[in-house]
């Protein structure tokens, strides 16, 4: 009799994962609501929301297609037609900045998401299982971390070639070890709590406990980590673009625009200033949001790694 009761209590993998997704969605919203109550979050969240909107509809709202030449109007100053002037090919700078949001934001979001998913799976498993497995996994993660992220990204992109997918994969792989480390220590804390022990005594499966008991309760740490990672992803992706190994011309990429505009600073400073302002406001927004999330939970400032 007792065994059947225990048996019926064990829930399967699919059910655990679906429940976790529902749980996590609700908890992320809660963290964001808390963050909105802090001064940093009140500035950061709207700024990030503005950029996200730009990423979705920016190319549609832009007055001109981003790659259209207006050769008669090269280096034009700001005017009613060209709000921020034009560049060396007479392309409208305002349109290019608006359209550039899409690629950098999708790349950084997807790269961060990949890194978070990989790192969280590894960190949770490692921390929950503990012992020898944990020891080995974390040593491997330490080894991966001892590679400067920009260098690793450059090597991978040189070999695989610069495509959106490859940049996303690179960011994901580069971020995995640090996310794993943070999630492991969060798991170690949650693991000792009574509700986890009672779930274990109830006879729940390991997957159920990891997905439904441990993971949701690491959300405060995970949301802060995700927002910090996102800001690094934007910095990394735009740096790769600047070095010419990311999004290729003539696509409107902010890093690439700054790199190309450098030689025309004297002709029209806006070629460089406009994308600089765009990338800076995006990263400041994400960083303020991260501060807000952290302040709301009174988490200590984490170690700064690359």
């Amino acid at each position, binding site marked *: 009799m007792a065994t059947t009761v225990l048996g019926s209590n064990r829930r399967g993998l699919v059910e655990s994962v679906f429940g976790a997704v529902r749980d996590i969605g609700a908890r992320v919203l809660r963290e964001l609501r808390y963050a909105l109550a802090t001064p940093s979050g009140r500035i950061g969240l709207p700024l990030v929301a503005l950029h996200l909107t730009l990423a979705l509809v920016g190319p549609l709202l832009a007055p001109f297609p981003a790659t259209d030449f207006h050769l008669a109007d090269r280096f034009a100053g700001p005017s009613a037609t060209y709000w921020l002037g034009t560049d060396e090919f007479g392309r409208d700078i305002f349109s290019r900045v608006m359209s550039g949001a899409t690629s950098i934001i999708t790349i950084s979001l997807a790269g961060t998401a990949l890194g978070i998913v990989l790192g969280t799976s590894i960190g949770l498993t490692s921390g929950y299982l503990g012992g020898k497995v944990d020891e080995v996994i974390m040593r491997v993660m330490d080894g991966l971390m001892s590679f400067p992220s920009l260098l690793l990204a*450059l090597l991978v992109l040189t070999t695989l070639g610069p495509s959106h997918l490859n940049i996303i994969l690179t960011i994901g792989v580069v971020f995995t070890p640090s996310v794993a480390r943070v999630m492991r220590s969060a798991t170690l804390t949650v693991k000792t709590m009574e509700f986890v022990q009672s779930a274990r005594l109830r006879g729940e499966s390991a997957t159920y406990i990891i997905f439904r008991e441990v993971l949701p309760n690491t959300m405060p740490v995970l949301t802060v980590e995700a927002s910090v990672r996102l800001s690094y992803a934007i910095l990394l992706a735009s740096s790769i673009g600047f070095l010419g190994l990311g999004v290729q011309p003539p696509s409107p990429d902010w890093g690439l625009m700054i790199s190309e505009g450098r030689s025309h*600073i004297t002709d029209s*400073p806006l070629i460089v200033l406009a994308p600089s302002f765009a990338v800076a406001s995006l990263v400041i927004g994400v*960083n303020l949001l991260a501060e807000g999330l952290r302040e709301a939970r009174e988490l200590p400032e984490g170690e700064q790694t690359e």
Partner: protein
Amino acid sequence: MARLLLVRFGLVAVTLFVISFAIFVVTMVLPGDVATQILGQGATPDNVAAVRHQLGLDQPWPLRYVEWVGGAVHGDLGDSLVQRRPISEIIGRRIGNSIMLASFTFLVAIPAAVAVGIWAGVKRNSLGDRAASMLSLAAISLPEFVTGVLLIMIFSTTLGWLPSSSIVEAGTSPLTRPQIMVLPALTLTGVMFAYIMRMTRANVIEVLDTNYVRSAVLKGLPMRRVLWRHVLPNAMLPTISVIMLNTGWLLGGLIIVENVFSYPGLGRLLLTSIQTRDTPLLQALALLIAATYAGANLIADLAYAWLNPRVRFA
């Protein structure tokens, strides 16, 4: 302590092995044959085979890996494909230039950042603290290449005080024109200052909240003495490891900043080797940068252990 040293050195050795192997696999075994790159797409199979033989590419890859690492250990990194000179010769002077730029940055950024961080932590939530926090957030949020280009716009295009590029004649040291180092160093200093300042501030605040500091204040010690005797030694411990972690960041920053200013260092060379598809040079540079990073991490670990009595006497 001896045991700790041994374990740490062992880990670094393993890390270096893994890193060198990864670099080798990424640049050699994956698609993109060096011989075809030299000869171009129209090369006949016979020519390709001849060049492959000449470069030793027809050997099995484990043998090539052992030869490469063996050479690297003895300081022989092979020849550059493009410049047709020994890589150690090309890298030699560039290393000096990069180290110069990095040390300049360290010397300016660290003392300033630690001083401001302590001050901001002690005067928490004052107007000055808020201003420092805002400024450092802005510094962290700007990519290095944006800071660099903005500095060029202010100090060379507009004011005309400093040169916008750090190109030097081949064979001369940047020290002959020290003004070319100012803007690259300033760019690197900005971000580094911000990171270290924020960490120092956070640590000082944490230590100020502890019971032993409270009891030191309550027993009537003058504030200056509380700071020097109780707060700083404890707050500096994590800061030191952050400073060392920043070395890793600095290596990445050097790659970008040197390319913004065309500064003749390793970072500039790295991008050139990528653009010209100079695989042996790229391998050598990647290995060198990764090894420096591993070395900096080792020093950070050991410094932390040595300064922390709980680890030192364990």
